[in-house]
């Protein structure tokens, strides 16, 4: 069992920060002693959420992306937030292979990856105000691992 811990990270919506963001969250999650696979899942999910903020939220304009992460017991909660343009139709955006930007060769898989690799996903968005993605992952405790 890990005592509660919290972090907040704020950075400019530049694509070279995608790697920075996922590495920071993974390093923070390391306190839960995750398996390589669990760590890889977190990195991928964070990368998807941050990429969405940069491409869709801010549409390559400058803005701030905020990540908050909380660990407690054997779980991590990660919030990725932007103050960008927001999502008009969340259900549609979450459909596998749907993309509003096919010309950029987006696969439309972002939310599907987040859903598959994490144990919980909630998306809140307001047009003109921004988007907030909350993801939860439960780690198998050391005693459960063989």
């Amino acid at each position, binding site marked *: 069992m890990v005592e509660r811990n919290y972090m907040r990270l704020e950075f400019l919506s530049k694509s070279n920060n*995608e*790697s920075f963001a996922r590495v920071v969250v993974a390093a923070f999650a390391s306190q839960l002693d995750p398996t390589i696979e669990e760590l890889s899942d977190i990195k*991928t999910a964070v*990368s998807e959420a941050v*990429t969405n903020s940069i491409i869709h939220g801010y549409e390559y304009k400058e803005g701030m992306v905020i990540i908050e992460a909380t660990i407690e017991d054997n779980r991590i909660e990660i919030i990725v937030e932007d103050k960008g343009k927001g999502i008009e139709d969340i259900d549609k955006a979450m459909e596998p292979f749907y993309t509003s930007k096919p010309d950029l060769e987006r*696969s439309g*898989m972002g939310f*599907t990856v987040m859903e598959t690799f994490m144990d919980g996903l909630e998306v809140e968005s307001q047009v003109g105000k921004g988007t907030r993605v909350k993801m939860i992952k439960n780690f198998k405790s050391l005693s459960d691992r063989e």
Partner: protein
Amino acid sequence: MRFSTDTIKDHLIIKLEGELDHHTSEELRKKIDQLYFSNNLLNMVLDLRGLNFMDSSGIGLIMGRYKNCKERKGNLSIISTNPHIERILKMSGLLKIVNLYSSIDEIIKG
């Protein structure tokens, strides 16, 4: 992200190393397309064995190159031995249309 390229017969072989995400895929895409079209090649091999990270931007990159190959009636093949990358490839449905190999010799015979 680092990459190296090679041409064997009419195959363009692209060997990727490092992390393939939205940031690294944009420039890579331009370079691959330039090599493929300017050298008038038919088939393409993406060697992902050196990658230690790939997200759905990698899927977008592979799908785009697949379309280019199909337009020329060529084939796109993937080499990968990393289970995490294979998981995301499988999730995307890409493996239904693109063949996965574990070495270059399996693709280019004789």
